[in-house]
């Protein structure tokens, strides 16, 4: 089996590719794949205890796509175990039996009418341009199952718009509803607590970002945004709630998620600062609100970075401003 390939002309997640990836980036990925294979030949057996410093460094240098389900599971399990010890009342649960039920007898799940309606409405509005998210496709149906079981397991959250996109990317990556359900629980309960309830604590994250942008280091970014009349909230709420889905091209998005599962929520804020910094010339090109928003909605216009360069860029930003979260 050849990893890191996808249907002809599509990117690694099966989307229309938004940019060309240069030869050296591809060569780098191939090299990393070899290194992983040599060093961790049986990653599927890896357990919590294998989370050593070299392993973490390996992750930050780039994860071969076919290993992502395992690597994400391992990264998230460290946070999940800690969480489950503290929250015995609403733990992260294995939902395989419930997923079976959702497939065979959906009425067995207890989900309130509004939540069900909202899920039903959002399924066709998740990735309408993607072949596997057409009504009747396997992944499409599994998206519904995952979201319904989540709502059944965690009625205090139920379903929040944006979770459909997260579950969608998880399904396209893991190709497995069970793994998707458990990672979705990790994101919503552990990594991003109270971000998907009416508390909308994502506002706190936006404030941190605003504070960072007010420091002298980001004066160039701040002035580019101010000149165009763009407020941080205009784009940051969506970036954060969607973990950059829809804003970053698949290759970079997945690298960001590798680091997010590894290091936690602060990665999102650091990435936001790094990406703003990287795009500042583009933002400045025209101090016009539409132009600036177009750039920020589609961050794939700059060159593709190797995972290593992307991770390095992220670690260079937010120091001292972005607290250690999660």
């Amino acid at each position: 089996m050849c990893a890191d390939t996808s249907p002809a002309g599509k990117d690694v997640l099966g989307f229309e590719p938004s940019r060309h990836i240069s030869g050296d980036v591809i060569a780098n990925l191939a090299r990393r794949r070899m290194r992983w294979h040599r060093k961790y030949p049986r990653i599927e057996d890896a357990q919590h205890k294998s989370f050593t410093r070299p392993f973490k460094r390996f992750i930050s240098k780039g994860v071969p796509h076919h290993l992502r389900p395992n690597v994400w599971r391992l990264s998230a399990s460290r946070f999940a175990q800690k969480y489950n010890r503290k929250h015995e009342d609403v733990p992260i649960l294995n939902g395989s039996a419930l997923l079976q039920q959702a497939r065979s007898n959906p009425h067995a799940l207890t989900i309130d009418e509004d939540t069900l309606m909202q899920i039903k409405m959002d399924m066709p509005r998740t990735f309408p341009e993607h072949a596997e998210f057409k009504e009747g496709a396997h992944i499409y149906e599994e998206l519904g199952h995952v979201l319904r079981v989540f709502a059944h397991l965690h009625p205090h959250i139920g379903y929040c718009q944006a979770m459909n996109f997260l579950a969608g990317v998880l399904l396209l990556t893991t190709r497995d509803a069970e793994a998707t359900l458990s990672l979705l629980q990790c994101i919503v309960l552990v990594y991003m607590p109270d971000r998907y309830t009416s508390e909308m604590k994502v506002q706190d994250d936006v404030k941190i970002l605003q504070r960072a942008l007010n420091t002298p280091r980001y004066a160039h970014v701040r002035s580019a945004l101010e000149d165009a009349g763009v407020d941080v909230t205009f784009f940051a709420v969506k970036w954060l709630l969607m973990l950059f889905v829809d804003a970053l091209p698949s290759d970079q998005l997945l690298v960001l998620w590798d680091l997010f599962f590894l290091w936690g929520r602060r990665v999102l804020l650091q990435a936001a600062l790094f990406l703003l910094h990287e795009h500042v010339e583009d933002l400045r090109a025209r101090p016009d609100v539409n132009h600036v928003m177009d750039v920020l909605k589609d961050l794939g216009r700059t060159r593709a970075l190797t995972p290593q360069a992307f991770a390095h860029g992220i670690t260079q930003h937010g120091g001292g401003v972005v607290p250690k979260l999660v």
Partner: protein
Amino acid sequence: MATRKKVLLKVIILGDSGVGKTSLMNQYVNRKFSNQYKATIGADFLTKEVTVDDRLVTMQIWDTAGQERFQSLGVAFYRGADCCVLVFDVTVPRSFESLEAWRDEFLIQASPRDPEHFPFVVLGNKVDLKDNRAITENRAKSWCDEKGNIPYFETSAKEATKVETAFLTIARAALQQEKDEDIYHDFKDAVNLDDVPDKKQDGCGC
């Protein structure tokens, strides 16, 4: 005001999830309809330059997330709005019943200076789905009348029915609101002008 500065009108579109807010905005701004819109997260906007009664204005039209829990983010997006558009789906009674809550929530979060006279426009969307219609024109109109004669339009973003007309009314209402705000601010500035030099003189005394 003697100078004619460039006018930016901020319009907020509110309403339940799936009533067609994104479609209405895109039909008006881009004259396009698609069955393939993604659910809106947070908020998004498009701008359009239009001439309203011989004046060139830029409309900044804000499309918001319809799920209730996103309302707490409203403050950030509603600030400085000149007109609020409330949308319901004529085939979904619940979306009509929600109008009141959307209106109240907007007034609380945007806290306009004169809430009694803040301009709203109501759109009953998806009138192309004639067979599934659940809210009659009369019922919608009488609600709008009750709430202080809110202009009401029956639209179809899909077939571009009444979209242009509705947004012209929206633009006019927003422009009027903007003028009223300007007069208020000019007045405030005039008052401030008297205060500021005094302070400065104090500062320069030493």
